[in-house]
């Protein structure tokens, strides 16, 4: 039995990495295992905390699930529980959140601590930590997203500034329509002039060249059709700049040397250059992933990716305590023993929750996932409406211990963090990263406690959903 640690974190996304670092900083010897590359590469790279809250009167505050009948779409939409927002500060409306929301359980302080840990780990690669206010970041569809932290490379593009803006796309990069982005921003009434331009750049690339290919060419300033990539791009954009004081590109301005690429383009164009976050696969997400894994290394966390956790064993003589999890190493199930465990495997998209036609389950430990019995109550007709499934997940105590159907901890030494935890509709609230950071820091710290009896966890019954 050689693979042992004080704390074992299952899952390598933002929540898993946060809890691993929090536990390591509390003095624990920490190991993290992750089946696949993190889903950060599918995310925007923005760190949102809370952008919208449901109205108190909306169904999100209650646990009644009403069976839906097919209704006219317009009627469904008119009954959609509206969300308040965008919020000026994520902390403003904490009190408005339902009682079973993870934020309600861990409190405002946990979010503050999570964000400040993030600031420390990312250093000057991210901005936003100077204020409690949400920043308004234009994204690739032209929508503006309220977010708590953002990559330095998007900083010059904030919609709250009034400097005039040019948005640039390339004919060879079909995933981004600069003129549509500009039109959408304009229609939303942003306080600056904005124009979009589609320029000829890298025309020798086929239309399905990968976003990483564009980034690599700029990273190494490769010659494209005889001209160095950065110069070629600047020359293509230059005639369109006019009075624009800042120029936005889809987020593909280099990977390793992105700062250098931006600086050179800025010099050549005589304005601030910024990136607009893209949908998956996202270079901003890839860069964040790289930095967070480097941070794990610096914090002394041991980690591995590539093999799934497929089961667990309870401790000798203590059926309510976990002894080890079983990692499937290409056929052989190898036990990884630890004193405490953190479940941070993600939600339905990250496959931390599984589902079939009958039930939604948490597949690693079989933790209780409260859910409407009738599967037709998992969703509503309105695609963007108040779906129950969006808030499904394990039910945690204030110390982030998953609870069973009776309201007792599933295991004495198991904690949970991130999207596997239920209670938040992170897509509508714009709260995914914040929930991961806030629950991650609590789960990691609690898991590292050596007295093993979390004092904050005495009131588990009162917070049952």
């Amino acid at each position: 039995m050689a693979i042992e640690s004080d704390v074992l974190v299952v899952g390598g996304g933002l929540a898993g990495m946060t809890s691993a670092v929090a536990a390591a900083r509390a003095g624990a010897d920490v190991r993290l295992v992750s089946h696949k590359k993190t889903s950060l590469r599918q995310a925007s790279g923005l760190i949102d905390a809370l952008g919208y809250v449901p109205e108190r009167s909306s169904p999100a505050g209650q646990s009644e699930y009403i069976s839906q009948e097919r209704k006219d779409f317009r009627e469904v939409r008119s009954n959609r529980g509206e969300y308040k927002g965008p919020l000026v500060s994520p902390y403003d409306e904490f009190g408005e959140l339902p009682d079973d929301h993870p934020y309600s359980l861990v409190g405002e302080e946990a979010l503050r601590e999570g964000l400040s840990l993030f600031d420390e780990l990312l250093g000057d690669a991210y901005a936003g930590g100077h204020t409690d206010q949400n920043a308004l970041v234009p994204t690739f569809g032209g929508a503006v997203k309220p977010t708590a932290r953002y990559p330095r490379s998007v900083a010059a593009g904030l919609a709250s500034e009034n400097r005039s803006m040019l948005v640039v796309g390339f004919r060879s990069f079909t995933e981004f329509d600069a003129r549509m982005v500009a039109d959408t921003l304009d229609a939303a009434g942003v306080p600056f002039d904005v124009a979009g331009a589609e320029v000829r750049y890298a025309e020798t690339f086929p239309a399905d060249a990968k976003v990483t290919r564009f980034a690599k060419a700029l990273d190494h300033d490769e010659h494209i059709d005889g001209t160095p990539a950065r110069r070629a791009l600047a020359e293509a954009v230059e005639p369109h700049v006019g009075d624009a004081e800042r120029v936005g590109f889809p987020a593909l301005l280099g990977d390793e040397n992105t700062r250098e690429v931006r600086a050179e383009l800025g010099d050549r164009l005589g304005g601030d250059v910024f990136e607009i976050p893209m949908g998956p696969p996202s270079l901003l997400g890839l860069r964040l992933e790289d930095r967070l894994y480097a941070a794990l290394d610096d914090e002394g966390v041991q980690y591995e990716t590539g093999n799934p956790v497929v089961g667990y064993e309870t401790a000798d003589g203590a059926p309510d305590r976990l002894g080890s999890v079983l990692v499937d190493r290409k056929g052989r199930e190898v036990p990884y023993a630890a004193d405490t465990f953190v479940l941070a495997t993600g939600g339905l998209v990250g496959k931390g929750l599984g589902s079939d036609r009958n039930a939604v389950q948490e597949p690693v430990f079989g933790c209780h996932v409260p859910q409407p019995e009738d599967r037709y109550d998992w969703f509503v007709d309105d695609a963007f409406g108040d779906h129950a499934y969006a808030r499904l997940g394990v039910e945690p105590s204030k110390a982030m211990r998953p609870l069973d159907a009776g309201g007792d901890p599933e295991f004495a030494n198991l904690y949970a963090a991130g999207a596997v935890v239920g209670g938040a509709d992170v897509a509508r609230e714009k709260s995914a990263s914040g929930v991961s950071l806030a629950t991650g820091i609590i789960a990691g710290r609690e898991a590292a406690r050596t007295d093993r009896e979390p004092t904050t966890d005495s009131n588990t019954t009162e917070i049952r959903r």
Partner: protein
Amino acid sequence: MTDRTDETDDTHRPGDQPEQHRVTDGGVTAAPGREGAIPEEDTNVTEVFPEGNLDLRAGADNCYKCTTCDTSCPVAEVDEEFPGPKFQGPEQWRLKRKEDADIDGSIMSCSNCMRCDSACPSDVPLSQMHNEARGEYVDDQMDALSTEYVRNRILSNYRTSAELASKVPQLANFAMNFGPARWVMEKVLGVTKEREFPEFAEQTFREWWRERGGAHVQSSEKRIAYFHGCYSNYNTPEVAKAMVRVFEHFGYEILVPPQKCSGTPMFANGMLDDARRDAETNVENLASAIADGADVIASCTSCSLSLRQEYPELFDIDGVEDVSDNTFEAVEYLRIYEDLEGELADAELDGQSFGYHGPCHARNQGLHRQAVELFRDVDGVRVEDVGDSCSGISGTYGWKEEKYDTSMKIGEEMFEHMKHAEGEAGMTECPTCAMQMEHGTGYDIYHPLELLEDALVD
């Protein structure tokens, strides 16, 4: 080159039907549920596409086009013409269901690094699909008399050339790097003259093993079968010897069964018939060692990945699952079953720094952090991770004249990071990554086992 059919005829077993053993032949029966196929009785699946030999339908259906695989592809990052793993896998698989659809020739630009496998959030068996497509392309669309085919066949059957060369190592070392000969090889065969051929050892590992009288430790409790692969037998027996000394230090009885190539270079070149032939020998001998109570240990991460993943995905051979389930990389095994960190706690090394590169095939097995973590607290040594980029050589890939530039472009990031790292030596578990590291930096490259030997064995 020599005709290789003779040496393998005896390894076919009577049950083999010739049409069955063509390309891929039944990963599904060998590996039930590997792609999460839905049992027929649970669904009313309509047969939309006629099936090939491998049932890849479930895998193709699992792809929801998130394109994460494409961002993990080291080739697509430097070659805009390469359509990426999503096309090569699920999309091409669907196209092929039409009878008149050929496999796109770009499949030969896939370097088989298999990074897409560990990037896919939906368990699409991408590398398995690539292997199948490449095999079909080579069998049906590539001219067996073409220079490319002949060159690829020679490169992927490295063991055959190496065996020959190892009989006359000095002559081979001279001839293989003799300028005019290399010029001819590039012109005639398309083998790049930019690279130096690896040196052949004066004495192969197997010769050394026989000379030393085999195992020095006997044990019925702790027993391993060593899959040394070709490279540590013919080129770097010091790695194989380190492996033997370290495992004997921990009290293991070592078996060295008869073996052939793991198949890695053959998969990458679509030479699945060759791979299967060698796989039959390997599975038979390793399965019988397993029956004698041994676990299988490899010191090359591509060999271990091949035995663990590609064999059961591609070949339905008796015992193939058994071999897959019981195979490990050497350092991995010691970390699981021995108190390696405890043993290293008092060890002292004499002040060396290494830039460590995690091979792609180690990443797939969750092994790319082991060297860094293992030596982190050992006095007198520093092992620094030089980042997650691919080395770019991908076995035989970087040896091809037309792929050499791509290979070096991929490797550029790793070379830069190595030069920034402390010290002037490198470390990796993969022999061809080691070749590339040496080629790009001029450093000497070591295997973690060699460092373990220094630390633990007198």
